[in-house]
């Protein structure tokens, strides 16, 4: 997030796109609702009529995968009606002319054809957003989990810059992170192309810096992303995989493909707290300690580095993930002598500029938001306050492209997937809770009543949902939360798993798979 969670409550306008906030980030959802109660206007763009859509001022129920067209049309209206922030654009941005050029084509009427959202709604949303002083944008996986994910994110940034809504209180572009420490995993260099602190691996100085810090020669060749790893494994080029705390068999698109890849590997290690679906394919499974059994830090979606504390002794013979890896590093001839999580943190703060000023003592009581370059720096609530990291903000105009897979006669529905309030990710944790399982014990597919009628499906019927990659049977939930032609499934469940169906087409830049759009057909089972 460029801004902080607390600021949401004071926004005048909140534009939520591709985020079912009240279910996936329930506590942030309460900030949105409180803002609404204080008089804020809410704009929602989502293929489903989610809870926040019901209390929104403008709800744009767009066709899955048409974000760019919608956002471009909003910018078209803003420029057309001269609502842009000229001063901000002039002083802080570049490439405005190209943006103007690109969005010129996207009249609301044209966008209506693509997105299915009435042109007038788009106009209204654009005006409300542009005219407010404090307007923030919240988005989540409904924006990023597309083959055009990067373009979607660029478009959101373009919109915010166009209206000068960056670097200011209660504004900004705010991705809501799904898992507790996605932010931290990225910050720490858990990505194939960057060292900790987003320092690119192909830049010589960075390589040298880390070679010095770690005392070994390093590769400057960017590595494989998750999706590429599976492709390479199937091709026989990737031989061994070490998985720490992930369950790609359920969470990744196209389950069949993932399993094929795992089976093809010569050696697979899985380290987790439960024997997950993925662990079943491992050669060695290592018992990890849960978050309640270890010390450390998580970084939340507003970049706040917060403490995790050991509350109980390790269950069974389990060990903290870091302890296990350190043991293996030592045995492979790389000597390291960390005695505690704090020791590791002190080292990572030295090589990660954003974390340089943070230590356990400083965050004992309250977490600090990075960047925090020095020990006396209070942390950063709002990014890009005076200037952007790269100097000037660059407009990156994008054109609308259709999703990789479009509905056709054979597969006439668009399937979109997501999370629900009562479960988390692949349910390794929430699936163990009786109460949650009583409330939300099985997978389902949401179908619009008109479609249901057409196919003779009633609420609670077992239906077969089929894509080009596979087929699952789940219960039908007849609801007008989804529009005609669109069906929705939660992706948590191993039984009736949505990711048997989803597409592995992925974004060229981020390699994020297109989990939000694929073509399916349904029939009563």
């Amino acid at each position: 997030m460029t801004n902080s969670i607390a600021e949401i409550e004071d926004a005048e306008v909140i534009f939520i796109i591709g985020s079912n906030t009240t279910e996936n980030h329930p506590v942030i959802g309460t900030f949105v609702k409180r803002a609404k109660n204080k008089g804020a206007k809410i704009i929602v763009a989502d293929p489903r009529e989610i809870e926040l859509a019901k209390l929104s001022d403008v709800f744009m129920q767009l066709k899955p995968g048409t974000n760019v067209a919608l956002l471009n049309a909003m910018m078209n209206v803003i420029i057309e009606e001269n609502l842009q922030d000229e001063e901000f654009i002039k002083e802080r941005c570049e490439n405005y002319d190209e943006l103007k050029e690109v969005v010129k084509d996207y009249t609301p009427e044209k966008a209506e054809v693509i997105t299915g959202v009435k042109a007038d709604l788009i106009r209204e949303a654009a005006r409300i957003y542009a005219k407010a002083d404090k307007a923030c944008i919240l988005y989540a996986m409904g924006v990023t989990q597309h083959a055009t994910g990067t373009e979607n994110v660029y478009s959101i940034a373009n919109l915010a810059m166009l209206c000068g809504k960056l670097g200011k209180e209660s504004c900004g572009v705010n991705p809501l992170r799904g898992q507790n420490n996605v932010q931290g995993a990225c910050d720490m260099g858990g990505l194939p192309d960057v060292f900790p602190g987003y320092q690119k691996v192909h830049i010589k100085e960075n390589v040298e810096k880390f070679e010095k810090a770690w005392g070994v020669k390093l590769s400057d060749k960017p590595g494989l992303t998750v999706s590429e790893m599976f492709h390479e494994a199937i091709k026989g080029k990737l031989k061994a995989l070490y998985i720490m705390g992930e369950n790609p068999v359920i969470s990744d698109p196209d389950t069949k493909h993932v399993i094929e890849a795992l089976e093809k590997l010569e050696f697979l290690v899985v380290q987790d707290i439960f024997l997950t679906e993925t662990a079943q394919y491992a050669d060695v499974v290592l018992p990890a300690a849960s978050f309640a059994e270890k010390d450390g830090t998580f970084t939340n979606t507003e970049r706040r580095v917060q403490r995790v504390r050991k509350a109980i002794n390790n269950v069974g013979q389990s060990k903290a993930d870091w302890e296990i890896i350190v043991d293996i590093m030592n045995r492979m001839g790389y000597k390291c002598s960390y005695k505690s999580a704090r020791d590791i943190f002190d080292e990572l703060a030295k090589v990660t500029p954003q974390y340089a000023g943070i230590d356990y003592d400083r965050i004992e009581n309250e977490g600090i938001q990075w960047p925090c370059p020095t020990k006396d720096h209070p942390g950063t609530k709002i990014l890009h306050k005076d200037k952007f990291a790269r100097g000037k903000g660059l407009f990156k105009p994008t054109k609308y492209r259709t999703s990789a897979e479009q509905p056709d006669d054979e597969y006439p529905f668009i399937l979109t997937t997501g999370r629900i309030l009562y479960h988390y990710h692949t349910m390794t944790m929430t699936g163990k809770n009786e109460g949650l399982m009583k409330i939300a014990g099985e997978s389902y597919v949401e179908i619009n009543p008109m479609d249901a009628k057409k196919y003779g499906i009633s609420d609670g019927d077992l239906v077969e949902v089929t894509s080009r990659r596979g087929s699952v049977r789940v219960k039908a939930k007849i609801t007008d939360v989804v529009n005609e032609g669109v069906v929705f499934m939660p992706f948590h469940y191993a039984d009736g798993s949505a990711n048997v169906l989803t597409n592995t087409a992925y974004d060229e830049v981020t390699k994020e798979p297109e989990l939000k759009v694929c073509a399916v057909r349904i029939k009563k089972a």
Partner: protein
Amino acid sequence: MLKIKINGSEFEVKKGLTILEACKEVGVEVPTFCHDDRLKPSGTCRICVVEVEGARNLMAACSTPVTDGMVIWTESKKVVDARKEILNLILANHPLDCLTCEKSGECKLQDLCYKYGIKGSTFKPNKKEYDVDESNEFYYSDPNKCILCGKCVRVCNELQCTGAIGFAQRGIKTHVTTPFDKGIANSTCVSCGNCVAVCPVGALMPKKKMKYRTWEVKKVRTTCSYCGVGCQLYLLVKDDKVVGVEPYFGEPNRGLLCVKGRFAYNFINHKDRLKTPLIKKNGKFEEATWEEAYDYIVGRLTEIKEKYGPDSIAGLTSARCTNEENYIMQKFMRAVIGTNNIDHCARL
């Protein structure tokens, strides 16, 4: 700055504070039932009354602003008598259940009765006879113990903004309930437990899987392991097991949690937890020692690295592990294996 006197001592405090806030700032404790820092003062419970010199009546500290020169007594005889009277009234229709009540030890009513030496009511008992609503999976509501402070209703409506509960009927029959008294399970309640967290007495309590008394648990502050909001919470520990969760009142969640963070902690001590390393032999997992597992892993990785080169190995780090662990994992891949093949399911 304003000059005021509290219990005979002089203080300087900022303008615009209530008496309650001023007292808190200078470390004088004033009891409250219905007050919550996050909500506008409602002044309904009256237990926070104090004596202000020159004022005809006792004043509710939570809703009276301090003025320059104010002279305040927070435990004068008049104040104490008023508080005793309030407690006396509450106890007249409160079940005396501290022997086994789950709230005992953290109950505000109990605390104040102890402080002011109220052992029971001198009024004719007028006990309520409501059914306990156990319909929610995670908590129960016992209206018989409710003191009608209204905090749960206000938190659900003004902070959580779900609006599942409200007050029904009037006078002695007033009680907290869901629309049409249909039970919490049949309301819009999302089981966040945020009402439970503010109830000053034993009227709203989490259902316990393992019995414990409030004084038996150790509370360990940590960060929630579910979504990216990073709510701060306490794990309640008894006999080396996590038996409950309570929210922390501070940034970023300000005392709010969701159903997962608040109630879905039982995976931690679940019987299915992996407890020893497993090595697959002939397609079947067999228990192994750490040494065996390490030897096997180190042997295989070294062999594959030598035969096919470091880029034939990859690691998946985790958005669920700590920063320290993510750092170590990528360092392992980069510095020890020698590849940048490191990623995680951030995008999923």
